[in-house]
């Protein structure tokens, strides 16, 4: 089967690739481009570990064919820090202990980033519901929510 030329922007870098149609965006990011921060959990869209931001929207990259991402702008966990400085959401996950094994963390942070970019004025309950597509087996979620709410305060204070 023919490979398809795909041009996409990942964390500001342009990539011109030749991709087999059956490769998911997740596989392209991890195996072709080598950005392994995005994790593969369930591989069926249920756990959210593979969440990345495509054109401003959080999506489960395990459900996206890489060939359909041509021309799009993708942000992964590797693209959040700038000039050696962590994004407030990343820092908040560290400060509150919002991670244990860390496998779900990139997905939670990217899902949170998209929510925070869209609207800072969410209640704790709304954040809890909006993050329902991400599963964590370690933390019990309490510290994750604390992290997100702390990051919201931090972003509000500095913007």
């Amino acid at each position: 089967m023919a490979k398809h030329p795909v041009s996409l922007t990942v964390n500001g870098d342009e990539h011109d690739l030749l991709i087999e149609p059956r490769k998911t965006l997740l596989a392209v990011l991890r195996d072709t481009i080598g950005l392994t921060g995005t994790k593969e959990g369930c591989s069926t869209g249920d756990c959210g570990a593979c969440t990345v931001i495509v054109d401003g929207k959080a999506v489960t990259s395990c459900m996206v064919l890489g060939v359909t991402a041509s021309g799009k702008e993708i942000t992964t966990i590797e693209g959040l820090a700038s000039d050696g400085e962590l994004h407030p959401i990343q820092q908040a996950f560290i400060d509150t202990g919002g991670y244990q094994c860390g496998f779900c963390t990139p997905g939670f942070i990217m899902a949170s980033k998209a929510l925070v970019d869209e609207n800072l004025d969410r209640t704790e309950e709304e954040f809890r519901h909006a993050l329902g597509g991400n599963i964590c087996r370690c933390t019990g979620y309490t510290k994750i929510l604390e992290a997100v709410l702390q990051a919201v305060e931090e972003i509000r204070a500095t913007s």
Partner: protein
Amino acid sequence: MKNFEFFEPTTLAEASRLFAQEHAQLLAGGTDLVIGMKAYTETPQSVISLQNIPGLTGITADSDNGITIGAMTKVREVELSEDILKHHTALAEGASEIGSIQIRNLATLGGNIAHASPAADTVAGLLVADAQVDIASADGERTVSINELFTGPGQTVLKPGEIITQFRLPSPASGSHYIKHKIREVMDLAFIGVASAINLQNGVIKEARIGLAAVAPTPIRATEAENLLKGKIPTPELLQQAGEVAAAATRPISDLRCSAEHRREMVDVLTRRTLQIAADRA
């Protein structure tokens, strides 16, 4: 995943010709198809993306024709649309019940309907909106009422090469509501889904529509219950009676989610509840 030929046509005619071939599948949001291909339950030889065909996305509202939703419109957009929230609340509520935000950012309204799951969360809302489904193929166009689209689980009247292009919702309801009976808050499939829509005139029900999902081989309208309500004042007794009549019209199955008896009982309860809220909103 089995390999396949990938096509990105830029016209409906081209997409239709490709889709008319054997072992071809349309790719909309991919949230069903890609997962199916990974599980080898779907093994298409060609996959035709609708992403690059202009005119298939977006929600438009005008006073003559009501609201039109392009088939490739993301479910998340349907959920957040102010026009849909106002005039077809049950549809917006149904859209908000699908998967997670990440999935709703991918999934499309056309995909949710063309997949033809009897449990699809947008279908009850479209039923009570009396949605008209516009379909195109290389041979021309036609329109089918949402009520006549489905023929069985995963089955529709769509012929090879036919593609859903948009949904037209000409009949707004002054009040409507959808309840999904489920266990988890998010990322769950419906045990059953019930939508009710009501138009009130001077406190009397001018028109009522009831849409039921996952209680029969296809999504259905509870027309007997609707007729019972017409021209009457929505008293609790009347709504209870409508619930019982709606439940009697179902043909549910027992499966790993719940029993047929439970489904039928919950149609009764949730029809009453959605009617009450629709009436309160109307």
